[in-house]
């Protein structure tokens, strides 16, 4: 798997005056992976992404992209990264095609391949018929797509997208999700967003940043193994975790629990059988669609900046 590591950041720290924005974080991105990067406002997500993209220099730590050290070989490292900041970096007095061609050339796309690269990026981002329009005449959603197109026009190995679905309507969000999934097949993608449902559907791995530290970094299991149950005669949480395959059991009140089960085949059925046999009156057992929100709130609660 080591060969598939496209980006590795170790011990990244960054201060802004007296405030510590990042406190020695590690991030690894592998080919084919979509890392959902979550955190409260001010947690340090954008700072991290700016450092990984080479827009900001870390006070400590180092970043390697496709084997190139970002500090020692910045051009080589930056040339394989595509970055979409929170606000798309657009020249609103340029035509869409001119702007994308400029981006491609800045990233070293040869002249001969320029038109094809621009056409491909435009097609992928649903910008087919706006190539000859001024960027400032486009709607917010289209401008966001142009920002996404500039990030991929040079076919980067690593894609860093800071809230890429900002300002998009639900249909456009679905398109971006499909695009990111398609792009991730041969690349490593890092996406930050505040929409937890989007991360649940899009990410293969989820990292949560809080107060400049990574407080969670694990594969995204979606709703697998996360269930909610309700008993008429609820047991203590300890009795539930004593059952085989139950990792955690969080009481939610009124006989309800949020359970984290082992990722094994038939685990839900085995749990249901065990709970019935125990006589706790199992009346509800549903996938926990709020598990990620639950995890996020638990990890970021009580420690807000």
């Amino acid at each position, binding site marked *: 798997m080591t060969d598939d590591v496209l980006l590795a950041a170790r011990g990244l720290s960054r201060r802004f005056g007296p405030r510590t924005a990042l406190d020695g974080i590690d991030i690894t991105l592998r080919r084919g992976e979509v890392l959902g990067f979550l955190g409260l406002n001010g947690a340090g997500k954008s700072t991290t992404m*700016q450092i990984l993209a080479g827009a900001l*220099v870390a006070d400590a730590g180092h970043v390697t992209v496709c084997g190139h050290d970002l500090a020692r070989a910045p*051009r080589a490292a930056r040339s394989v990264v595509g970055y979409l900041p929170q606000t798309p*970096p657009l020249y609103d007095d340029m035509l869409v095609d001119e702007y994308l061609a400029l981006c491609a*050339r*800045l990233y*070293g796309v040869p*002249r001969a391949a320029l038109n094809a690269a621009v056409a491909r990026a435009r097609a992928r981002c649903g910008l087919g018929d706006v190539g000859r329009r001024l960027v400032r005449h486009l709607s917010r959603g289209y401008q966001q797509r142009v920002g996404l197109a*500039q990030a991929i026009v040079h076919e980067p190995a690593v894609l860093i997208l800071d809230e890429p679905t900002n300002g998009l309507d639900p249909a456009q969000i679905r398109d971006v999700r499909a695009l990111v999934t398609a792009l991730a097949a041969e690349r490593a993608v890092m996406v930050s967003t505040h929409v937890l449902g989007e991360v649940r559907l899009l990410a293969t791995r989820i990292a949560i940043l809080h107060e400049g530290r990574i407080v969670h970094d694990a594969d995204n299991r979606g709703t697998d193994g996360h269930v909610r149950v309700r008993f008429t005669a609820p047991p203590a949480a300890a009795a539930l975790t004593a059952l085989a395959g139950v990792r955690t059991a969080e009481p939610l009140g009124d006989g309800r629990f949020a359970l984290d089960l082992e990722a094994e085949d038939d685990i839900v059925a085995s749990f249901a059988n065990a709970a019935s046999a125990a006589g706790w009156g199992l009346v509800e057992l549903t996938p926990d669609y709020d598990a990620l929100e639950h995890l996020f709130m638990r990890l970021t609660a009580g420690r807000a900046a």
Partner: protein
Amino acid sequence: MSGAIAALAGGEVRRLFRSPLAWLVLALGAGFMALDFMLLVVRYLENAAALRSIGVTRAVLVPYFLAANLGALLAAPLLTMNAIAGERRDGTLRFLYTAPLGAVDIVAGKLLGVLTLALAYVLLVALIPVTLFWGAPIDPGIYLANLLGLALFTLMHVGLGLMCSALTRQPVAAALVALVVSLSLWLLDWAARLDPDAATVGGYATLARLRGFAHGLVSSADLAWFLIASVLFIMLSVLLVDADRRLA
């Protein structure tokens, strides 16, 4: 020149020509210089007897190019103010920082873009008095020396404007600082003339440095002065952009 620098310069030219500012500067520059030229020719014709002793070259061309230099002094801050400050304000400078470009590439691209427009101004200024060559005994040496002086003066002021643009995120502030510095450098000559104690500072006056070119004398000292000042301003622009990238 690398492809990225050429792309950046091309993008800058496109954006400049898509804004009304560049067209306005060129149109006003051409109009102002054409009017100035016409007035100088009319003045010469009306006072031909008195002015014949100094010749048409000195009576028309020399003051014409002096006005052209003043035009460049006023135009350069307007053409350079957005180059870096505007990008910083709009958040696109950070985009350039993430591209595989060094500070030298960014400044070189911006410089070449603005210089393309400045060159258009110099060419316009050079073309207007060409008509004199058909009907008057013009000294081509003085004409070319004045043209060289204007080109160097413009280069230096574009460099100065770029440096001021690299200092701030407000284009108007960049233009004002550039204007104050360039006018101060211009007026140092007057200060030196008025006050003998200030004579040494007169050597730093752009107006004093243009005097040789105006009279057809291309001295290596004046050439070097303009080139060193231009390189200094451009290098400071590079350092400012580099520091901004590291310290932002």
